[in-house]
């Protein structure tokens, strides 16, 4: 009798643990959001998962703008032990999916109606052969021109809407003894300005052809020569110390009123906010000339690896669902300074720049002006992107002609595609 009782206890304890396991699992998440607002933003997700009874194992790898994290991910994946989820963006999602290691998220997507909520252009990046394999988190807009109105006023210049107006304003600001463009001479910053100019000069179709499809003929075309010319014309309006400067130091120049404008994505807003500056009063965010109807986006996302344990699988699906839930979208994007990637989020908690961005995000998603950013690893493979970076930075920093640069761009891209 006593023995029977013992057995019953053992069995029931086992059963309870098993049942508990089936609902509460662990997710191991690889990411490189380790600094300030970003770290706070990702903790939001951790909290929400824990509220549902799941556990979160943090696998944060700092440094190298994600390059270190990618190296860690590769070694884990090659050894057959990938984390549950990893922060991977853009075309690299396709490369991972092609290896057959990612899990299919279609059931969560269907239940949560992702196809309705997430714009098609963004969804396409998250899908492999029509199936959801990644979850988008946030949206940054690239084609912003950050302006200091006090500097414009001092120089008697107007905010530019066209490239002619842009260079006229530069001329006036320089005459007034100020630096027209605060610039950081690092390859990715040069590419950030350049891609906005390509969209501004060539229009959305030309951008799609050159920087998304990487069409060699379009890359070597006269329109590209024109865009390169405008890009190079900016150089005399930057200061001599620009090479190697970090982006946030260039933003500081605009904040302090040493420089009038900066080409940069909307993370620059964080610097203005940290300095206690208000949008519409101390600074303005304009779209880069010619890109009012374009929205170059940088979307962070998580890919989900195939896991066997049913509890871990449940936790993984819960994480995918929570990322696109309205609560997390607001909490995360307010603290990171980006905008929600899904429709149907209230504007109130966001600031003026983010609200403008959200409106444009919705409008361009309908008009076709919503396009992935090349410079921020959204549009082309890392190999093609690297080839473009090399030509652009070499062109900007040498006396190469725009026509030569366009031809080299086409050649380098052809080589990188092989």
């Amino acid at each position: 009798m006593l023995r029977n009782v013992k057995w019953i206890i053992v069995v029931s304890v086992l059963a309870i643990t098993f049942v508990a396991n089936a609902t509460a699992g662990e997710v191991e998440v690889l990411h490189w959001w380790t600094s300030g607002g970003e770290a706070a933003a990702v903790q939001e997700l951790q909290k929400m998962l824990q509220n549902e009874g799941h556990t979160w194992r943090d696998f944060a790898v700092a440094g190298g703008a994600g390059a270190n994290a990618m190296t860690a991910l590769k070694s884990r994946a090659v050894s057959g032990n990938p984390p549950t989820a990893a922060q991977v963006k853009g075309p690299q999602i396709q490369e991972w999916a092609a290896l057959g290691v990612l899990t299919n998220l279609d059931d969560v997507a269907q239940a949560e109606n992702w196809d309705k909520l997430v714009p098609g252009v963004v969804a396409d990046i998250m899908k492999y052969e029509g199936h959801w394999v990644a979850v988008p988190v946030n949206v940054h807009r690239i084609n912003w021109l950050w302006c200091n109105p006090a500097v414009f006023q001092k120089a008697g210049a107007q905010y530019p809407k066209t490239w002619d107006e842009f260079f006229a304003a530069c001329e006036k600001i320089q005459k007034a003894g100020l630096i027209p463009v605060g610039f950081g001479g690092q390859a990715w910053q040069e590419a950030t300005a350049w891609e906005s100019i390509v969209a501004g000069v060539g229009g959305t179709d030309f951008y799609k052809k050159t920087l998304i499809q990487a069409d060699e003929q379009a890359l070597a075309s006269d329109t590209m020569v024109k865009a390169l010319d405008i890009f190079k014309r900016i150089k005399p309006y930057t200061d001599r110390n620009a090479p190697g400067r970090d982006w946030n130091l260039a933003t500081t120049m605009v904040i302090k009123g040493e420089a009038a404008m900066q080409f940069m994505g909307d993370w620059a807003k964080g610097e203005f906010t940290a300095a206690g500056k208000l949008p519409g009063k101390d600074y303005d965010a304009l779209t880069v000339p010619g890109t009012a109807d374009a929205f170059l986006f940088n979307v962070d996302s998580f890919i989900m690896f195939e896991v066997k344990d049913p509890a871990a699988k449940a936790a993984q699906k819960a994480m995918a669902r929570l990322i696109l839930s309205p609560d997390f979208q607001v909490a995360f994007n307010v603290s990171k300074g980006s905008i929600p990637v899904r429709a149907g989020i209230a504007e109130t908690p966001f600031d003026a720049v983010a609200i403008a961005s959200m409106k444009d995000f919705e409008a361009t998603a309908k008009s076709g002006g919503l396009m992935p950013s090349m410079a921020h690893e959204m549009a082309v493979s890392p190999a093609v992107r690297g080839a473009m970076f090399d030509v652009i930075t070499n062109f900007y920093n040498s006396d190469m002609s725009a026509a030569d640069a366009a031809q080299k761009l086409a050649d380098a891209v052809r080589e990188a595609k092989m």
Partner: protein
Amino acid sequence: MHPTSRSSKWFAALETALPKIVVAPSFMVMVVFIYGFILWTLYLSMTRSSFLPSYDFVGLAQYAKLWRIERWGVAVRNLLIYGGLFIFFCTLFGLLLAIFLDQKIRIEGALRTVYLYPLALSFVVTGTAWKWLLNPGLGIERLVREWGWSTFTFDWLVTSEMSIYCVVIAAVWQSTGFVMAMFLAGLRGIDDAIIKAAQVDGASLPRIYHKIIIPSLRPVFFSTFIILMHIAIKSFDLVVVLTRGGPGYASDLPATFMYSYAFTRGRLALGAASAMMMFFMVMAVIVPYLYSELRRKQHA
């Protein structure tokens, strides 16, 4: 058989085997993690590997591709400029400093420490400090201009053609003290009697240095060369911190090229090919030099 003789035999066997046993783990580690991975890199460089290793054999195609890339040409040319000037100036200044310090001067110990101290810094610190010094808006140029020479320019760091020379300046500053210490040790090892004999024969001091002292430092030159060369070829951190390979990629070196291709662009095979080219460069210089030096020793 006697138990005592048996145990002593065991002991003798152990005694001969012990060094091998002790060395074996580190030997294995070296064989696998140095030579094994050199061979693996060689193999990867002949495959189609993109962002993960693959084992499709493509022969020397990646090498052909590598030499067609303009940026690689820039990196190799920079290595020749940087390596050549770095080795030359470090040796020159190191030797001169060592000779001056060897003149039985006062507070030699303190001066020696002053010159040797930069070696205690990592290249990252050196790079950061020189980045500020060489930046026209912050460092030397601004200082001299504020002193009144308002047209003075020293903007190598932000000029594409000159930025590699900034890397040379910082690297020479860092390593000269070390070379000096090596030469000083060499100078101290020279027999005074030879120098005294030369002085008795009426040789002038420059002649003594030229004909006796410097030639007898030959082994020091040899070690200096080998050490400086491998520092030059593996240079990575200094460039990353000082210029980030810029402006553009004007001050790129093979090591930074390899990193960006293998780890940030998902072109593992091309990165492996560039790593192998660096390896071959070292071999091409070291092997003949070692051979000639070692043969000389045998003949002597």
